[in-house]
């Protein structure tokens, strides 16, 4: 009995959880380092909340991409779809014909349309995901520039009210020099992020769909042998990703309040980087969904740290690239050390258990 429980415990710590733990530890170390080196700014809770306030859209995009990446695919259109949604919603709101709710529906519709297109072509017609989502990216970017080229600021009253709406946390905050207590503020977008993280975590951990995604990402062939509908699972994962990209576009608009061509640009790369930092591998089948927000937070903390250090803007990109390099190497070393007892040649994670 004891040995049984021991083996069970051994198998429990899968590569997903190991990578997730590494991601968590790295984030804590990073934030701890930030606290020690720049206590003035990072000690304030508001700094922490601002990571979410200003980057809510990136968090959401990362979540959607995470599901696809666990399923062994990739979606590089998310940033462009996010940008397209901001512009489309801004135009709808600015034209005066639509309400905020209709704009939300439009955002969801655009996201869903892209998701269904990608999902159908990739899952049922068996086309390479990179190319299809690349085409989706071109399509979204092209539609964005065709819709409107100049930045479009939304001045609709209800929307501005929504944009400026903040939730104050009365028991958290800082006292400024005059002795006035300033409570911490969070934006509605943060609530969306938290709700989505919880929803997606439950979905990936306990629902049948989530487990199917892990199985399909790990090994498509054996998933089919197990009787999983592989095509439908892949299809649904892309639909979910597209839908999330739509939501993120709306949240982006709620944060900045303007439609712009540059909105959401390079989000796909940032989201991939965040997911990798969060321990989600591009091979598929490995990763904990909670790693996605943790990875994003790590990435944002690094950026904030570099900004706080006042490094020249060109060095910023290099430093963040170097840190990404260190994380990737660290992850790879930990994984290979773990597998070195069994295999001298590194195999994909799903083969390591045989």
């Amino acid at each position, binding site marked *: 009995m004891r040995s049984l429980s021991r083996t069970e415990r051994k198998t429990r710590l899968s590569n997903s959880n190991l990578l997730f733990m590494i991601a968590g530890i790295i984030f804590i170390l990073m934030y701890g380092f930030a606290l020690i080196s720049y206590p003035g700014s990072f000690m304030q809770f508001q700094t922490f909340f601002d990571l979410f306030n200003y980057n809510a859209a990136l968090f959401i995009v990362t979540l959607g991409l995470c599901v696809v990446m666990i399923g062994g695919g*990739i979606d590089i259109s998310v940033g462009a779809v996010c940008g397209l949604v901001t512009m489309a919603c801004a135009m709808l709101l600015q034209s005066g014909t639509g309400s905020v709710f209709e704009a939300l529906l439009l955002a969801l519709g655009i996201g869903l349309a892209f998701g269904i*297109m990608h999902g159908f*072509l990739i899952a*049922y*017609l*068996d*086309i*390479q995901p*990179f*190319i*299809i989502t*690349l*085409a*989706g*990216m*071109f*399509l979204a*970017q*092209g*539609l964005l*520039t*065709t819709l409107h*080229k100049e930045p479009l600021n939304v001045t609709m009253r209800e929307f501005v009210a929504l944009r400026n709406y903040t939730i104050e946390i009365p028991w958290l905050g800082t006292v400024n020099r005059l002795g006035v207590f300033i409570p911490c503020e969070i934006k509605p977008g943060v609530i969306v992020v938290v709700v989505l993280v919880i929803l997606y975590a439950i979905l990936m951990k306990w629902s049948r769909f989530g487990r199917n995604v892990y199985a399909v990402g790990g090994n498509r062939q054996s998933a089919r042998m197990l009787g999983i509908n592989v095509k439908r699972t892949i299809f649904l994962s892309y639909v979910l990703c597209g839908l999330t990209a739509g939501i993120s576009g709306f949240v982006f608009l709620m944060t900045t309040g303007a439609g712009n061509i540059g909105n959401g640009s390079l989000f796909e*790369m940032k989201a*991939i*980087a965040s997911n*990798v930092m969060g321990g989600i*591998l*591009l*091979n598929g089948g490995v990763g904990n969904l909670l790693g996605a927000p943790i990875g994003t937070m790590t990435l944002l903390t690094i950026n904030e740290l570099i900004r706080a250090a006042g490094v020249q803007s*060109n*060095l*910023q*990109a*290099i430093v*963040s*690239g*170097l840190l*990404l*390099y260190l994380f*990737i*190497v660290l992850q*790879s*070393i930990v*994984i*290979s050390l773990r597998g070195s007892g069994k295999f001298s*040649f*590194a*195999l994909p994670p799903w083969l390591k258990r045989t």
Partner: protein
Amino acid sequence: MPRLKTQVNRSSHLFLPLSVLAILIIINLIKGADYFKITIVNGAFYGNIPNILFGASELVILSIGMTLVTAASRGQDISIGESGAISSAIFVQYVLRSGNVTLGTILVGFLISCVAGMIIGAFNGTLVSFFNVQPMVATLILFLGGRSIAFIIDGKVSPILANEISNRIGTVIPGVPIHTPIILTAVFIAVVAVVLKTTNLRLYVEAVGINPNAARLNGINPKKVIFLTFLIMGICAAVAGFIAVNKAGRHDSVNLLKFIMMDAILAVALGGNSLAGGKFSITGSVIGAYTIEVLNRTLLRLEVNPEAIKVFKAVFIIVLMIIAAPEVRVFAKRVLDKVKRPSRTTPYARQVD
């Protein structure tokens, strides 16, 4: 069923890029019959075909490297534009600092930039082969930081490469009617063809791409092969950067070869190669690269609204990929067989019964 699939795939290996090219040329001919017209201006050929060959030269070179990387490592290098920018920045700095520019200076600068490209390739290759990182993630690092490195090497915004030899490399050598980038591309393709014919590179790359573990058991070191493909990719990026910077006459670290990796990956896919590694066809990729250039120029020629060009490109890619999709092909084949067969095969079937 699987046999049918492989048969279809084997026959369609060059069918896709060539048919697309043919369709595009037909569209162009419908638009105006003078499409193939070539005129001689200042002793050099001008016209649609030379323009396409001229414009696609970097893309062709990059797509050759991308084909090898894709085939061996089952992933894509997304930092090729950045490595081209870095290596050409080094080239420009060498030429600008050497004072008197001779052909030797350019050649040495070119070799130095090739070494720089190889170092970048080695950096990516180490991550992919020895640390076992997925290629896209490994090259994401340079994608994010590469242009800043190029800018720091430049030291200022876009240094200008104003000398006679660079100008000739970028445009035309007097007395030779063909643009120099076209010649360089042809030479590069020839070198690659010779290397693939005379060495075992193709066999090794395909073996590693199909099954790295089986390749290892057969005595091929997959890590070394993958590393080698990234080194070649680095050289390709350096050559492409060299051509691009000489064409432009100045080194713009922000916009040089920007987002060209998307086109290069597209060229690989258009050439009938699988993005999941394995067998590859350089010819297909080269034709694919030229097809992309033809597509871009066709959209311009059809006077499509510049804002909407990307939409048309996207629709074109999607339609193309649907036509080329194995599922659709198998389905089409089955339908065709059903149309053809009834008269022929039913008597046979009865006889067998």
